[in-house]
């Protein structure tokens, strides 16, 4: 029963399921609302559990992704280091010499004047181009808070009310 009461409070806000439940069409004529109390609470409890299970599953997926990202970042860094070794001056020089290339001297380089040619303009990167992030949707606190934090929140609210009502 305590649990059901907690669910009652938890679902007071932001629950689309609750809104559906509270519509007039849900209450059939001739049936007492009191007799629907317990099935209603059960319904809420099952929704709560279902949502919590979903959140947990997605949370685990996120944790898995975070671990994978870390591993990929480490592998990326290692691959970059390997690549840099292959592209290092010494290796490139050895490879080019083995292929028969030699440094071009000034006499070997020919420049030609081409009419109407203009060199491409250099592109300056914009400074501090902060990408705009879409606002992430928030899970209402009622879905994630612990019993302790719920109690302290409710007590805090109550205490504020008491303070406000004092002259």
């Amino acid at each position, binding site marked *: 029963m305590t649990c059901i009461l907690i669910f009652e409070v938890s679902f007071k806000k932001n629950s689309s399921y609750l809104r559906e439940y509270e519509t007039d069409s849900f209450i059939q004529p001739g049936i007492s609302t009191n007799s629907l109390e317990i099935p209603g609470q059960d319904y809420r409890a099952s929704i709560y559990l279902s949502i*919590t299970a979903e*959140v*947990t*599953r*997605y*949370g*685990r997926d*996120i*944790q898995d992704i*975070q671990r994978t990202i870390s591993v990929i*970042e*480490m592998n990326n*860094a*290692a691959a*970059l*280091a390997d*690549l*840099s*070794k292959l*592209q*290092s*001056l*010494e290796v490139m020089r050895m490879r080019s010499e083995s292929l028969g290339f030699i*440094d*071009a*001297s*000034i006499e070997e*380089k020919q*420049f*030609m*004047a*081409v009419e109407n*040619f203009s060199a491409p303009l250099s592109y*300056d*990167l*914009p*400074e*501090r*181009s*902060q*990408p705009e992030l879409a606002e992430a949707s928030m899970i209402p606190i009622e879905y*994630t808070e612990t019993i*302790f934090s719920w109690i302290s929140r409710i007590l805090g609210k109550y205490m504020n009310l008491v303070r406000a009502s004092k002259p």
Partner: protein
Amino acid sequence: MKENIFTRYTFLGLILCVLPLLIVLRILSLQINPAERDFYEETFRNREKEWINLTPLRGLILDRNGQQLANNQKTYEIGVDLTLLKDSAPIAEALSRTLGLDYAEIEAQIQLGISKKLQNVVITDYVTKEEIQSLIDYLADVEDSNDNKKQINLRALVYADHFKRNYPNNETGSIIIGYEGWKDKITSLTGIQGIEEYYDEVLAGKSLVDPSERNPINVSDRNISDNPTVITTIDINIQAMLEEIVDREVKTNRAKQGTIIVMDPKTGDILGMASSFRIDPNRYWESLRNLPDDLPYNPAIMLPYEPGSVQKPVTVAIGIESKSIPKDFTYVDTGVLHYAGVDIFNWDGGAYGPTNLVGCLQYSLNICMGTITTKHVPTDVLYNSLRSFGYGQLTGVDLANEVAGFLKTPNRGYWHESDRATNSFGQGFSATPIQMIMSMAAIANDGKMMTPRVVSIISRPDYTNVISPSEKARPISEDTADFVKELLTKSLPGEAESALPLGYTMAGKTGTGQIAVEGGYHLTLTNASFVGFGPVDDPKFIVYIWFQEPKSDIWGSTIAAPVFADVVQRLVVLMDIPPDDVRLSQAKP
């Protein structure tokens, strides 16, 4: 029998009643005892979280074309789990065979660990991927064999990967890049010298201990940002070319050391900075032992010297800018200048008679320069102008441990009236090569003196910070700069023809600085220098060359000037600068 069952049920009933009551009492006791409640709440929170130490990888350093200059390489630490160890011999054998480690030393390390009752002992670190692969292959071979005893003992051998700083081009560019290492036994790994030290905070980032949620419901973003990539102004091909030339010339001329800097005078971008002494930052602890005690890590920014006649264009610029001398200034060279108790002679002791400014620079006449500063430019104007050219101050180049040269100022310290004369031809004060190239770049860049820099972009995943070139000062006007540039262009072919590359018009000046010793100047040792820039109509580079104490010859015109031509001939190929005839015909409408 019935009674017995009744007793059992009663006992069970009592337990079922008392247990919930105890639980309720415990809950109540927790509610009324805040200290205990806080303890359990804290314990609960800690169990929900997994504290992970997140140390970001050090940021990359790239050259101006994206070539990697510093990155992070995966290496391995190899150790022994002493709790699993039965016999150390197979481990010592495996490591000595595959990694070439000393068998006895491994045994000793393991025994030391056992005597200290340690759980693990580290045998070696920074093992490469190839080396670890050979160890893995060896372990696989043992697994395939029937030697069960060996197999069991080798299970105590453990390894873990981690990253270390890697410099793929080894010693190329090391005086600019610096290295990551330990400054002393107390501090942790840090950037030392060059970019690594100057941008240490940027490159290292902040390691943080992150409370990662174990509870998947509370999972959140790990707030660790990738460290930025630092993009330098260095062209690694130009750098390698300069190092090749400086090594060759130091050897040929038997100089103590050599330094060459190439800079873009319009932006202050350092394209290359080479010194004949370099370390391999991948093995800095060994390389540093070979660095002579009296040479700093990077002489280009840390070793001030008396530059000699490369200072003369600045003296002429100060005279013209302050209107102390006209552009058609002439004087009669008698072969000696008596000033403040000091006799000043030309480099060859000759008397050149009536001479104009082109002649002054072409024949590199000390008496001409001394005449300008002692008879025409007022003292305060001279020293204010020298300060505005940056002498005696740091240039502000973004490299660690820059040293300012020393400029004596009137009526302070050791300043003597005769310094007015000697300062005019680059004696009596000291400047680093980076200071010299910065002040000369003002002449090449229409009077605007740019702050030298080696980093142009700091790129983070979420934003890019483009560092704009910064104008340090404007010591002379565009008109003065153009005039001095013209003087240097006209005088260079007469002064040092060997400095001229084919097809390109260059401006430049040689310098032979005497070396101060106790009681005067050394009779045979000099500093041979050259500064030049080009193409004169649109300068794309300025080159500063310095050879310290060359033994083959003493003159800048014979030692440093031909090196300038060599550098330029290779520079124009690497920078794709067409010869004057092609470039100027292109520029015509």
